[in-house]
């Protein structure tokens, strides 16, 4: 075993049991042993830095969290229809939705590897597919639940039924939309819009 191989292994798994071969190398190589000791010290120092704040910090965080949850608990379930809250659609939304779907199709098809974790869809509320239809629990305090998001959801769920990787697509698309939603002056900032698309493309292409 050469030094490079061992050092890569040490970095990847410095906190695990060493094999006899690794132990033998370490006892004969001061450079690798030095790295091993440094990594352990590194971990130790960083763990100290990780020390959590006092309980008041978390008590305050939890109070805010559960107040927010109680205010936003689902109160009803609705069936999504095409005319749902139409009056809230921004002018640019249909164009954005169309561009987004078109831009994502070739990227998705060309992907070799995709993450498998489902992501954070929270801003839209809990999303479920019931026998091929879309059902969304609506949080009454939600500031925005735009129709185009629903339309895109429909599209994406359709894609998901045909393409197992569509779920990742949904996740990333929602993250993008969430960012756009938080962006107040997006409409007047085409550069930012382009940046969002580039970011999404980067995420999807791994």
């Amino acid at each position: 075993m050469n030094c490079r191989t061992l050092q890569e292994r040490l970095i990847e798994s410095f906190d695990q049991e060493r094999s006899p071969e690794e132990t033998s190398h370490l006892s004969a190589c001061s450079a690798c042993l030095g790295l091993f000791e440094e990594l352990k010290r590194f971990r130790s120092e960083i763990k100290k830095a990780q020390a959590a704040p006092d309980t008041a910090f978390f008590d305050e965080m939890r109070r805010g969290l559960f107040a927010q949850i109680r205010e936003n608990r689902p109160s009803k379930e609705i069936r999504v229809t095409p005319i749902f809250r139409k009056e809230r659609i921004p002018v640019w939304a249909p164009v954005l939705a169309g561009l987004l779907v078109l831009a994502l199709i070739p990227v998705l098809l060309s992907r070799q590897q995709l993450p498998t974790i489902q992501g954070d869809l929270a801003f839209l509320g809990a999303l479920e597919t019931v026998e091929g239809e879309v059902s969304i629990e609506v949080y009454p305090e939600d500031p925005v639940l735009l129709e185009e998001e629903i339309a895109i959801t429909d599209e994406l769920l359709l894609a998901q039924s045909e393409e197992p990787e569509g779920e990742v697509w949904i996740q990333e698309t929602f993250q993008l939309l969430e960012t756009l939603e938080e962006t107040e002056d997006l409409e007047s900032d085409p550069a930012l819009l382009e940046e969002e698309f580039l970011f999404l493309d980067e995420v999807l292409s791994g």
Partner: protein
Amino acid sequence: MAAEEIAAVNAASDLDLVHRVQEHDDLRAYETLVRRYEKEAFGLAYTLVGDREEVKDLLQESFFSLYRSIKMYRGEASFRTYFFKIVVNRCRDAQRRKSSWGKIFWSPSADIEGESLEGITEKTPSDALIRTELGREIHSALKRLPWRQRTVFSLKFMEGMKIREIAEMTGLSEGTVKATLFHAVLKMRQALKTALGLESEVHS
């Protein structure tokens, strides 16, 4: 709630607690999950963001997001991995908003050596390490890492995750995670060479 019931909730597995929330909207079960992961999540978010008050908001957002999307969790990944992914995404979004809008220009040296550090050190005794020179050096070096390296490094060295778990969480291949981690360690060692008194050589 009876003491026995409270004990049962506290002893329940993550998956059992998730099912209680999914099926009965059981907030006590959810609070148990929150308490179980809040400190670890703090450590991770603090490493990534570096501002205590911002971390508090990000934790609240992350737990709220988790609550609202918990029905999507089907137990394919470990709950910890699933939740930490939300935390990392929240931190990344916060970081991106900063850089997109230029509200706060990311300046590691300013954060560590300037007012932000003073704010952190005065808040709790548990932040004591930041007062030390080495603590400053470590946080300063971490903040200088590119986002991906900082994330991978933090997940490995702070959360003790395996390469496979980090890959699963970040959506990167295991090879990419290994390479990213290797480069992050090289950079950290270079940055901390004097502070840690490092002498050994890493073959890059």
